[in-house]
């Protein structure tokens, strides 16, 4: 089981829910700062460009301060000369442990 397992339509639903103003776990919204580092191009095939990176996200919310650390993998595609993201997988370092509420899009 994944904490978030969204396809395109579920991401859209998440945004719609946020925009109601009644997504209580994001009222007030979490204050976030992100660092993405150690970016590596892992390979390229017909599907797109696979990229790996380490990520740290600092979250300040009503509950308190939380640090989220992850290994991310991305699938990028060139569309009209720009890079577009087709997939993003976030592998939280501590995903074997019980985790606090994660109600922003990591």
């Amino acid at each position: 089981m994944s904490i978030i397992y969204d396809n395109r339509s579920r991401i859209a639903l998440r945004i719609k829910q946020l925009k109601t103003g009644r997504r209580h776990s994001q009222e007030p919204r979490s204050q976030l700062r992100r660092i993405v580092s150690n970016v590596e191009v892992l390979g390229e095939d017909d599907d797109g460009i696979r990229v790996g990176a380490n990520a740290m996200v600092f979250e300040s919310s009503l509950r308190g301060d939380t640090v989220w650390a992850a290994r991310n993998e991305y699938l990028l595609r060139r569309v009209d000369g720009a890079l577009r993201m087709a997939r993003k997988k976030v592998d939280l370092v501590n995903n074997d442990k019980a985790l606090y509420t994660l109600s922003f899009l990591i």
Partner: protein
Amino acid sequence: MNLSAPTPQWSDLIRDDRVHGSLYHDPAIFEAELRNIWYRTWVYVGHESEVAEPNDFVMKSIGPQPVIMTRGEDGQVHLLLNRCPHRGNQVCTAERGNAKTFTCPYHAWTFANDGRLTRYAFPDGYDDADTAGLGLGRVARVASYRGFVFGSFADDGPSLEEHLGGATASIDQLVETSPEGEVEITAGFLKHRVKANWKFLMENETDGYHPAFVHSSIFSVAESGIGDLYGAKSTAVARDFCNGHTEIDLRPEFRKLGKPLCWFGTSPDRLPDYVSRMEAAYGADKAREIMIDGTPHTMIFPNLFIAEIQIFVLQARAVDDTVQHVTALQFKGAPDLNRRMRQQTMGSVGPAGFLLADDSAMYERTQRGVQYRDPEWLYLGRGGHRERRDENGFLIGHATDEVPSRGIWRHYRALMEAA
């Protein structure tokens, strides 16, 4: 020197229609709950399908205590404590696996998966008599009901079936959703931690008053019919099964609609395999009845919440630290249904869930709130004037009434006063 925590007068803290805020944040009360509830009554631990094969084991818990659930070579399920009798070291650090023995890494003491000490290093250092009777600690009583395994640290007390009482009907209703009459817990768990007292979670599970407000955001954008089940005009019923077990019985609403699989937001044409297996297993009429009624929404005291498509296992770790372990229910012989169960579970619950993230915000806000000075009490009187008894003698009320909370607190007080 008196080492025991001061015992409060429970009648001063728990009244018919209100409870004192300190019940949720006083560490001495949490210690008393460990003694009188978590380490005494029946607590849900795991499901037999999680240790399906001989020598399977899986790490579980009872409150703050880790518990290793094992299946011995003889097929018997054991609940062991993860503590070597030599120096107190943990003998198992794996989350799950298959092992006939556990060897402590400190001095190589080795235990069978039923807890017996079978070997230790350099045995000539001991007389056999020295080590007789040493072994891993055990949960004194282990019993299961239709695959759901419970443990009690008390040597004696009510049997599991006596404890479950009227709530056995909910488990019976649940397993009938499988054409083979069995639930399997095989989808893996999301572990959602909150800074709140376990009782805020337990009460919220069968609080039918909050969904219309806490979950209005997702109900409105997902065009979900769930909100109406908890509306002012709903015919659904809140029920106190006694012994702390409570439910929101949604069947009156589903029967009014009379559409099979409506409870799951789908219809027979979308799950044809499942429907035909159900009809083959139960006959067309009974299968239709089961598929209209759906699965229960029942909180089994103190820690098993059957939530229609998933189960939540509540783990109280400290007075303000609780983990909800949640997994999609999987019904034996229903792969097409199970796939949707997993998809919906990942969407709705866990740390990022459309529903549970917002519930957790409420648990944590109430946890902070009860530590403010005034008013000291929480009011639980909703629907007191319209409580009535059903045909089995259980107290019921409107789906949004606080019949369940009052029932939980009556049982809680009885347990705490039985010290």
